[in-house]
């Protein structure tokens, strides 16, 4: 495919909505809304189903399974679910999850941005090999790493602490590092070079020029990182053995027993509830993705 490279503008102002002009007109047509909203409902159906099921009573949950409207609306499932296990309520599990997801996200996004800049913009010896190593860490299934890793952390005496969950995040995560790298590479280089001519150090360039321009990438990384940490159950399962350290995703799994009695209403209720923080984070942050946080990168 031949690409027509547009000439790089000398002033970079990237944050206005980027949209081919003619495309906007079609977005005003009713057809657009009918299509997009209709398909949106199809996308949403399973989630609506989950929420509907969480308000159905015990006798109704399997008999009236396909309906999106509970016959007898009840919040009993939420009460039973939140009660948790033997006195440990979901208050504890939410506190743990917020701590884990919040701290991990903060660490991951910050570290990933710094490392990504190093890989994307600085030419140093061994860069390509290290980059390949980094990508390769994504290609080795976690199932074979669990046990050796557990042995290391248990020798360090870190079982039942958040250290095995958080400390590895100080290096960022390969997915986000690579993602942010791609965004940095999309930024024209002449700005950095001009700054470098003016005697700006790499650190300054990173903070003053690069960081402001990759906010969409950072927001995206924050949304993903929060969600992936929130739903992670394998690491908490292995390292957080005491129930008072359980996270929401781990506690959710402890509800069901294939061979015994399972309170499915409570599972649906707590599953629905566990989506709320992730969804709130998405809604709060995605606005900035498209509407823009600021007007220009350099004028400040």
């Amino acid at each position: 495919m031949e690409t027509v490279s547009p000439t790089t503008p000398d002033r970079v102002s990237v944050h206005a909505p980027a949209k081919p002009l003619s495309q906007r007109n079609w977005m005003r047509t009713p057809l657009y809304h009918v299509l997009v909203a209709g398909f949106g409902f199809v996308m949403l159906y399973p989630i609506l189903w989950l929420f509907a099921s969480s308000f159905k009573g015990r006798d109704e949950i399997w008999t009236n399974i396909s309906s999106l409207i509970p016959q007898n609306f009840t919040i009993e499932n939420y009460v039973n679910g939140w009660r948790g296990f033997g006195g440990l309520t979901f208050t504890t599990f939410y506190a743990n999850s917020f701590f884990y997801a919040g701290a991990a996200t903060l660490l991951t996004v910050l570290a990933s941005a710094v490392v990504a800049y190093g890989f994307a913009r600085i030419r140093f010896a061994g860069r390509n090999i290290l980059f390949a190593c980094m990508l390769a860490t994504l290609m080795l299934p976690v199932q074979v790493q669990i046990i050796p890793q557990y042995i290391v952390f248990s020798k360090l005496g870190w079982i039942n602490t958040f250290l095995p969950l958080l400390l590895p995040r100080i290096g960022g995560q390969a997915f986000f590092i690579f993602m942010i790298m791609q965004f940095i590479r999309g930024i024209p280089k002449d700005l950095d070079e001009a700054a470098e001519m003016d005697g700006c150090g790499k650190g300054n360039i990173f903070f003053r020029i690069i960081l402001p321009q990759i906010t969409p990438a950072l927001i995206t990384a924050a949304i993903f990182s929060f969600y992936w940490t929130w739903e992670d159950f394998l690491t908490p399962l292995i390292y957080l053995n005491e129930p008072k350290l359980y996270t929401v995703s781990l506690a959710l799994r402890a509800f069901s027993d294939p061979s015994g009695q399972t309170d499915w209403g409570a599972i649906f209720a707590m599953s629905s509830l566990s989506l709320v923080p992730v969804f709130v984070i998405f809604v709060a942050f995605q606005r900035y993705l498209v509407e823009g946080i600021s007007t220009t990168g350099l004028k400040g």
Partner: protein
Amino acid sequence: MTEAVPTVVSQAVPAKGRGHKQKSKRRRNDNVMGYLFISPWLIAFLAFTLIPIIASFVLAFTNYDVLNPTWKWVGLQNFERMFTADPRYIKSVKATFYYVFAAIPLRLAFALAVAMLLNTPRRMVSSYRAAYYAPSIVGGSVAVAVMWRQIFGTDGLINAILGTNVAWLGNPNTAIWTLIILAVWQFGSPMLIFLAGLKQIPREFYEAAGIDGANGWQQFWHITLPLLTPIIFFNLVMQLISGFMVFTQAFIITGGAPLDTTLFYALYLYQRAFVSLQMGYASAMAWILLAIVAIMTALVFRSSSYWVFYGSQEE
């Protein structure tokens, strides 16, 4: 693998008139700064990731079974067996490739198309974005399995709509497609990355193109698409890697059945490691997977110089 990494920065031609000494000094300085910036990753890698990786590599040549502290060296036996005496292994490779080549292109095409549709700051559109992203946050929870069986079950929604009576999850021809549809339905993460990429495209380009009289399609073809290639490239690589690692959905919904048609590589590996307790064999499988994925990724990297356009690249 190393040569496949695009060397983008290399074209950064220093201003003329700089002496040889200055160049080497600058290079040394770059080395220091480079390692300084990547040091968080490097430290974490050496401290937390490297040991398990090496351990899994060593175990691939043993008959280690997790519960038994005594194990012995078996040489290449695990690898030999995989390719000559384990029909389920071959089935798992087939199922995984089928999944990757069906689900990933569909998912990316969907994600890009929807991102284009939703890339506008109007209020309604913001709720559409939330709706389209929503499926991606239900992940692999216990509830998803129940939900998916409810939709694709014999008495489920799909059969009700189509007026059929097919056991979608039990039929060897359709089971894998329910998982592919699930993957496509959860296209939110590549979509979001595309949105962030679209956001980064300078508006001036479109304005200039508009003045030149380019229509929407031409603008898409000549501006949006080329400038989005680094992001498309990223999504392609990442979806490819995660596609080969696919595990959770098959684990909670089909368990590999029917007839091993949804026995994805990572699922089979998990069964070997934690059900049959053959961790040595599972480690050998893991390293073959790494090799397969690395080759596929390297091919994509190789191809990138033909179609990926970097703003930082001078002609």
